[in-house]
């Protein structure tokens, strides 16, 4: 009897140790790995929404806050998992993949994939008309009329802002956002 109880206690303890080591290894692994570039970009896309005020025509017309990816999607499931359960204002954030802006005029933020570089002018015009925040990692995107351009800098992802472009689209960017931008085009005194 006594030996049975002792053996059971030991086996339980071993199971507990195993569980502990597995779980501990997993958590420490998760903490140590740096987020991938697409993870950072996905998070930025999501967070931009918190520092931008939409006064454009299609603001508030949709039930959800749509973050759209135009063209070849570099994020995969990363964006979906980033926005999952997130809210901006009263609205639920959803990630959408679109092939043209006309496809959906509910996009608050559109990430223009580098695959769309050729159609950039038309896309930017449509976005401006629709009051959509355009974000891209296409080089010189901001100089070409885009609103926010991801730029790699010292192993980090930073961004540049084209302030006149956002104003023309009826968007107001918070000074907080501008503060952390590496470059703000059209900022008075800059």
């Amino acid at each position, binding site marked *: 009897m006594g030996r049975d109880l002792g053996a059971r206690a030991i086996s339980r303890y071993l199971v507990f140790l195993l569980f502990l080591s597995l779980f501990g290894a997993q958590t420490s692994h998760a903490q140590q790995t740096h987020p991938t570039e697409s993870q950072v970009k996905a998070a930025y896309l999501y*967070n931009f929404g918190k520092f931008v005020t939409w006064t454009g025509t299609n603001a508030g017309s949709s039930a959800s806050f749509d973050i759209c990816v135009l063209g070849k999607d570099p994020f995969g499931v990363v964006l979906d998992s980033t926005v999952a359960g997130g809210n901006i204002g009263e609205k639920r954030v959803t990630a959408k993949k679109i092939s043209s802006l006309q496809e959906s005029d509910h996009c608050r933020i559109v990430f223009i994939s580098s695959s769309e570089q050729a159609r950039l002018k038309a896309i930017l015009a449509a976005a401006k008309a629709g009051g959509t925040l355009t974000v891209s990692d296409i080089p010189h995107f901001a100089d070409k009329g885009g609103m926010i351009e991801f730029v790699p800098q010292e192993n980090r992802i930073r961004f540049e802002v084209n302030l006149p472009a956002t104003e023309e689209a009826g968007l107001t960017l918070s000074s*907080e*956002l501008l*503060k*952390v931008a590496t470059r703000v085009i059209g900022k008075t005194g800059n």
Partner: protein
Amino acid sequence: MAVGYSRSISRKLTVMNMLVSAAALLLACAAFFAYDQITFRQSLVRTLSAQAQIIGANSISALIFNDPQSATNTLSALKSFPNIASAGIITSDQRPFAQYSRDAGDEVLNIPAPPDGRLEAYWFRATHLVLVHSIVFQGKTLGFVYLRADLHELDQRLKRYAAIAFVVLLLSLLAALIVSALFRRSVAEPIVQLAEVARAVSQDNNYSVRAAPTAAQDEIALLIDAFNNMLQQIQHRDNALQAAHDELEERVEERTRELVSSNRELEAFSYSVSHDLRGPLEVMNGFSYVLLKSYANQLDSSGKECLQSIRAAARRMSELIDDLLNLSRVTTSVMHREEIDLSSYARAIMEELCRTAPERNVEFVAPIEVKAYADARLVQIVMQNLLENAWKYTSHHDRARIEFGFEDKDGRMICFVKDDGSGFDPRSTDRLFQPFNRLHTSAEFPGNGIGLATVRRIIQRHGGEVWAEGAVEKGATFHFILEPNRGTEAGRPV
């Protein structure tokens, strides 16, 4: 002495005043300082919290978009607050994000996050206050901002307070000094005066002095009143006592005067009686002599015997009258004191006595000289009587020893005549000195019983004392003092 008292009481008052004011002041300072410390700490925490909130709010985008430079810029605004030693922002996973330190090389603190569910926490360390504030954006904790403030200002405040307290203490002690100087007039001085009066009363027995009353209506005034009342009562009593004493003295003097005069009368009476008795006695004596000489042949032998007895009785009566006359003369004669030697008197008397009965075996002892200041004639009578008695009352013994001597007691010379004769019953000592009182029968020892009475009169006239000690068959000692006792007048007739 009185000055010492005065100093001590006013010094006590001053010290008391100063102690009280110093204690009150120090307590007040301590309380005030404690209150100030608390409020200062609270306000420090509040300011620090406000700064942390501002920095937190300004660092949200920096945290979100991973821009430590922007956060560092925000933190560097703290330069305008010199009390903040260091500050920093930590991400929610405890990584240092941005730092600021006032002095280069200030170490980065390992700051724990505020406990769960709290936006903010702070710790007071020995020299620092550390405050951690959560940076929350849209319900999500992005990180923490911590601020570390110096507590130097607390020290400075403490020093400043100590300096102020010291100055105020000095001023208040000065004020206390002045106040106590003022109060000394109303409190200490009446007491000092009272003490002075009490001293005068106890030293000089002067109950007529009074303590000066004060204008105030306090306990000191009460004390002074009570003291004065007491003095008044003592004075009354003293006066009454003096009056009673005076009256008593007067009465005694009166009585003495009465006694003296009645004594004089009595003595004059007894003198005249004795004198008058003499005449008839001489007649009896003369005629009985004539009868015996001229008519001897007509008388038979028994008639002659009768006549002899009459003559003997008459002779005895004459002696008695002589003694009585002597006694009264002793009391009335004028006293004249001079320096005399009692010892030579004693020796002369003893020689005379030995000559009367040379067959007796009597040893006589006396010092070479016993000086006294007394009436020579009267003292001669005293010595005569005492030595005669000693001679007489040792006559039944084969051998006798008679001693004359003196001893010193408290500066008074006590003379004595001592014998080892038949002595007397000590219970009858007082009767010895009364006239005609005898403790022995005439059959045993002849005598009239007037000798010691005479001795006592003479001693009393000298203002001295006489007393006897003795026991049956153990001898007798007669002590006498010739010098008057202190305060007793010598030569006063009694």
